[in-house]
């Protein structure tokens, strides 16, 4: 400030040699008024700068330019030869570390290229806040939105009925009705001796096998002898296999049956017990 006052004094001192003496007085008065008005102005001011940017990264640099007027431009309105306005243009870059450009930005301190005490008037601190002066340099690798699933809708396949298993039902009797019936022999060692003897006596009565020649091989329970159409005894397994006739009955008798061998001729006879039976209703 004082430097420019000195410069003004210099100019004022030279004004004596100007061609129009009456004008010098007026000019001196005018200059004094202007200086007084300058002194009343705030030397430094805070100014708000609002900027907006769509994409900002921490590594971006914000290029700014500011023009600071020395205040003498006012004089040019009166006499452009008397004073020469000194506008200082500053260009600087600000590394963006943490900022929200949507809100108001306060400029607290300006680092100008040269240290000078310049009266800065609010209205002359012209910062070009237009988008062009900010010259936001956007990197070539512009961040792009990541393709999301909604951009490419996923096709949904429905397993539908295939997800639950279903079993088809077969109702044909043939698979089971064609199978023979099978009886396993009781363990002879678990039979009472009296029961064994009764079977051997039955063999003597029904097949004429003397008791001393009869050999008890197997005993089966609950054999529906009246319904049997085919019968086979497997000696080695002591198993009785039989099929039933298709005869329609409402009642039948199931007998205990023994396999008895005649030791004389080695023949095996199937001997149903005449008294060990039970009547069964088939209804």
């Amino acid at each position, binding site marked *: 400030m004082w430097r420019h006052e000195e410069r003004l004094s210099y100019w004022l001192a030279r004004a004596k040699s100007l061609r129009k003496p009456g004008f010098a007085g007026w000019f001196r008065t005018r200059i004094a008024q202007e200086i007084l008005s300058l002194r009343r102005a705030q030397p430094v001011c805070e100014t708000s700068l609002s900027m907006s940017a769509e994409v900002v990264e921490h590594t971006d640099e914000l290029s700014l330019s500011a023009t600071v007027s020395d205040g003498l431009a006012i004089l040019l309105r009166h006499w452009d030869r008397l004073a020469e306005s000194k506008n200082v243009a500053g260009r600087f870059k600000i590394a963006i570390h943490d900022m929200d450009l949507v809100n108001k930005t306060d400029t607290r301190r300006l680092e100008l290229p040269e240290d000078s005490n310049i009266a800065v008037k609010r209205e002359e601190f012209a910062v070009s806040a237009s988008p062009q002066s900010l010259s936001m340099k956007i990197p070539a690798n512009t961040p792009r939105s990541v393709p999301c699933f909604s951009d490419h809708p996923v096709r949904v396949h429905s397993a539908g009925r295939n997800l639950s298993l279903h*079993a*088809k039902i077969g*109702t044909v009797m043939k*698979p089971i009705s064609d*199978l023979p019936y099978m009886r396993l022999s009781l363990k002879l060692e678990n039979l009472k001796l009296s029961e064994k003897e009764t079977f051997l006596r039955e063999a003597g009565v029904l097949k004429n096998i003397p008791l001393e020649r009869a050999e008890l091989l197997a005993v089966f329970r609950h054999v*529906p002898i009246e*319904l049997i159409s085919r019968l086979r005894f497997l000696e080695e397994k002591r198993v009785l296999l039989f099929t039933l006739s298709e005869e329609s009955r409402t009642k039948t008798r*199931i007998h205990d049956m023994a396999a008895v061998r005649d030791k004389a001729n080695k023949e095996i006879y199937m001997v149903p017990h005449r008294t060990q039976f039970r009547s069964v209703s088939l209804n």
Partner: protein
Amino acid sequence: MPMQEKQSGQPSTNQVGYFSYLKTGEKRLGAILVTNQIGVPLEFKYTEPVVASKLHKILYGSVLEKYLHETVIRDRLGREVRTTPNFFIAPYDEKEFLGSLADREMMAIQKYIDPPGEISGPFNRIREREAIVELEEESIFLRLSFSTSDESTQHAMVEWLQEIARTMDVLEPLDRIHSALTNLCGDTKRD
């Protein structure tokens, strides 16, 4: 032999229900057989082989076997039963899957060889759902696993079993069902 079917909703003591399940390779199938009291078939229903796909195996995971066994096969068969047996008998392997079949209780049975000395009498309850039963006329013991833990129901089931054992070999139809299922599966191998 005439095949008799009763449409009555009342259980018939003359009718004996059987259920069997067969898993051979990837195929699973099951059947129910209802016989009269000498083992003659009255009703036979079976499922066609069910094969779970790779997706089924992934989606159902560890419950696939149970789902196939109980829901897909047993429950499906249960809805098809037209006769009215008191209870259903299954092989002892079935004991892990026992449940209600056509609103009837089930029991899994096997022959119990060489019963220990402390077993005596016709009914020996050894666990909440297990018992050893003596079939009086044949002097053989059976090991039973019940679908219910209700003791009175278990007693009723055992009495029913002993009653039918007087006229038939209660285990024999299980072999027939297994043979039938094996034939239906087109596989002669037994698992």
